[in-house]
């Protein structure tokens, strides 16, 4: 039901997303849609799929942000601007506001592993949970009239009928750059927990008090462009012999 688990869940299954590695290829977006349109619950419908106003339900979307260094009014003024590709899906929050606002009990957080799910047979499609989520992780499917969200591929991770290597969320399995990682963030010895500790993984919108399980690894510092680029200004400082004479002659013309 819509009360959150009374005690911290023994497992906190979630994703760790490496913003230093993501190249913004959107492969995870497509694989997520492909798996989840045929998996758990109602299909992820598209509206006007071949028309000019195409839109549809996605459980995972990639935004791209430009970050201007502090003190800069325009690009290049105070160091290099950066482009950061930013995958975003449900963060399976410990204090999930989307769960407690649900009037029907369709939204719930699992006590055993912390995954936040929607029981679509109970969902009335009021949309309040999408309003309560600060991350935009929930989208109403306009064809089915029920709320859709990332299930952490609950129908893959415990699925013993598929190869063990495939028992991870579809986005993680697909990512060609290895920017997405899946694991138990309650276990300090798990690979994902070690990664978060080593790289200083961050919470999104900590001020919203949601205590997200998913963590983001911030981009590493980058060599300044000026230190690595070939200088473009013409110079003949290294010329000798014939070329030095020619340089002098041409200079005098």
């Amino acid at each position, binding site marked *: *039901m*819509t*009360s959150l688990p009374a005690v911290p869940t023994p497992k906190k299954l979630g994703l760790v997303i490496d913003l230093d590695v993501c190249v*913004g290829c959107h492969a995870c977006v497509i694989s997520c849609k492909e798996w989840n349109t045929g998996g758990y619950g109602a299909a992820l419908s598209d509206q006007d799929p071949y028309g000019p*106003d*195409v*839109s549809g*339900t*996605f459980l995972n*979307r*990639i*935004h*791209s*942000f*430009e*970050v*201007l*260094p*502090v003190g*800069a009014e325009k690009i290049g003024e*105070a160091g290099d*601007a*950066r482009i*950061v590709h*930013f995958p*975003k899906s449900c963060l399976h929050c410990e204090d999930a*506001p989307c*769960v*407690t*606002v*649900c*009037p*029907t*009990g*369709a939204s719930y957080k699992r006590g055993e592993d912390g995954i936040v799910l929607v029981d679509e047979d*109970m*969902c*009335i*499609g*009021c949309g*309040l949970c*999408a*309003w309560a*989520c*600060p991350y*935009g992780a929930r*989208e*109403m*499917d306009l064809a089915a*009239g*029920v*709320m859709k969200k990332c299930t952490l591929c609950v129908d893959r991770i415990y699925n013993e009928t598929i190869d063990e290597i495939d028992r991870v969320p579809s986005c993680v399995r697909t990512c060609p750059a290895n920017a997405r990682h899946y694991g138990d963030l309650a276990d300090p010895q798990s690979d994902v927990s070690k990664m978060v500790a080593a790289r200083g993984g*961050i919470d*999104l*919108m900590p*001020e*919203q008090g949601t205590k997200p399980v998913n963590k*983001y690894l*911030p*981009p590493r510092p980058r060599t300044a462009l000026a230190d690595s680029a070939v200088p473009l200004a013409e110079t003949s400082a290294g010329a000798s012999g014939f070329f030095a004479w020619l340089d002098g002659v041409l200079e005098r013309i």
Partner: protein
Amino acid sequence: MHPALSIIVFTTLSGMGYGLATLLGLGLFEPAALATKIGYLLALALIAGGLVSSTLHLGNPQRAWRALSQWKTSWLSREGVMAILTFLPLTVCAYASIFHDRHLVLAGVLAAGLSLVTVYCTAMIYGSLRTVQLWSQPLTPVTYLLFSLSSGATVGTLLAVTGASRPWLLAVLAVLSTVAAWMVKRRWRADGKALPPLTTPETATGLGFIGRVRLFERPHINDNYLTREMGFQVARKHADKLFGIAILLGGFVPVVLLVVAALAANAMGPGLTAFLAAFLAVLAHYAGVFVERWLFFAEARHAVMNYYGR
């Protein structure tokens, strides 16, 4: 936030109904008068009509009954439960007035109290959302309660000038609650605009340690559910003018008309002048509150828009 017509109609009409039910329950009307009996039917119809309207925006309205189950955590569920509970004493009161010309004190007080609690629950659906900073102000439920009472009292004045009660009593109540409602609303709006944003693109992405964050490319070229539902921007630039129009229509005009109605009823007894003035006051008040409620949604910015550059 997208101002859905069904939600605006629901919150304004049911607010008016609950306001009227509160005054009826408190026994401010003569139970034997025809206008009082019509008032009970009107209150019940407004509340029921609002509830039906609120189910229109659901994806699966046939399962709406399930919304009564999670009152422990959900304000939306609490609202549904309280709305149904309110019907019980209110219907009993209506029965006593319509068929026995009597006012039942206990049932009346219960109906009045439950009406206010229901309006409070409605307001807290919005007031409890941390994601919409404008709404999560403590004054949000106060504005809902005052608009509910003032629109109920305005309708009450219309009933009073047709013989249900003392016109000046209801008119004074309506004028006072209308003035209070708009004063609190103005304060609420000014406070809300002055708040520094709780969430910024920097905290939303965690990239603030590098510098200022700006959306470079959105996930898809076209709008999606999130931008349609929470990225509403149409006519925001006219918000100040609309708010002024709302105060004029829902504040100044009804106050003048209510005074005219009370004076006319005092001087000439129940008559056409008093009725027309009170009737126009109700229309103007509703129009003002409708615009106010539209702005309540249209002006509210949702935290998720930090990811969409809006």
